[in-house]
């Protein structure tokens, strides 16, 4: 049976090589490690009674994460502002302050649109597109994943 250190090494290898799934079988023992959308599910038929989830395994290190991705949405002619990291989304700098952006409001390149908290680090996320916020796709204090769309923007 694999011990926790060996499982940790497997996880590190998966993250390092951007592998989504590894299956190991040795006699009656079977272990599956999966990383769908940066959410890692681990199950081992002999090790545990039920599958467990390894949450928030970031394949993209925060310090080198790309700026908020801008992905064109062909269907609606809108562009997405996506999360560059796993974290918690905050719409305002603190609970008593107004949101950085609101639906119908204008954004410009470099404007702070939200804060993402990851490992107790509060990361300001800036817009990479100028336009009008059409939709906010996440709620305040919601957990978000790497690449998850946060806003839809109608570009200028």
């Amino acid at each position, binding site marked *: 049976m694999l011990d926790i250190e060996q499982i940790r090494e497997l996880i590190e290898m998966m*993250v390092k090589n951007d592998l989504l799934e590894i299956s190991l079988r040795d006699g009656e023992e079977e272990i599956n490690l999966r990383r769908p959308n940066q959410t890692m599910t681990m199950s081992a038929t002999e090790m545990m009674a039920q599958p467990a989830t390894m949450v928030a395994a970031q394949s993209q290190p925060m310090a080198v994460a790309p700026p908020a991705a801008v992905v064109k949405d062909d269907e609606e002619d809108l562009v997405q502002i996506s999360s560059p990291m796993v974290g918690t989304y905050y719409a305002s700098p603190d609970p008593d302050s107004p949101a950085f952006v609101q639906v119908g409001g204008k954004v410009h390149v470099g404007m702070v649109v939200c804060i993402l908290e990851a490992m107790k680090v509060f990361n300001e996320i800036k817009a990479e597109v100028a336009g009008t916020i059409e939709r906010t796709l996440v709620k305040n204090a919601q957990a978000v994943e790497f690449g998850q769309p946060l806003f839809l923007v109608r570009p200028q």
Partner: protein
Amino acid sequence: MTAGHLNIDQIRTATGHSHIGQRIEYKAETSSTNDEAWLYADTDSFDGLVVFADAQTAGRGRRGRIWQSHRGASLLLSVGISGHENPLAGDWLSIITVIAVHETISRFCDTRPTIKWPNDVLADGRKLSGILIESRQNQSGARVHVLGIGINCLQHQGHFDGPLATSATSLELLSRHPIDRTAVAIHLLHALDQRLACPESLNQQTLRNDWLAKADALGARVTLEHNGQQHSGTIVDLDPTAALVLQLDEGGIRAFNAADTSLVSMEYGS
């Protein structure tokens, strides 16, 4: 001059050859030392900059919580960090900072401190320090960080009002000797410099082992709240993203990220 006086010249001399503290600013009073540090974000002197203050008029903690401190009683500082290519420098910044703070507090405190996951330092179950790390892109597009640190140094029991009366403490309350904030500051800057001045040498395994040992974490029983549900189990590891890994009572092993998990309770192993 009292032992509690923050001697900036002495700190500058002690960190003269260090990366962290290569530029040191002091404000008798400011809104927050993090705000002061951000003023330098687009300058060459940001990386390694340290800003001290004796009083903050709008000191902030996590999500707008107020960080209270009587003038001159706490060590209040912010450190500018930028230009690091090693992802550990960002991913594990919270862990690196609390290890340095714990190391410093251990040096001056007669009671052995511990770490409440992920980055609070406690002694006798009471909070001694606070850390607020903020991250932004500067004008050239680089992600830069400010480490805001507050350590309770000279407070007496009467300084802590309301809920803080039973949840906070200070080095002075935990030490048989007078606390010299200057000495605390120098020790902290050296501890940070040791890890942050050369980020390419940062080693995940070393940080993991260091944190687990300082937090007395391995084998500790904890209850966490994640997505509105409570989970209990035993700490078995920190994973490569610095998430806390539990052997759950209900079966299975699961990692919890600090971003969306809060610690409800923790009992240390024997």
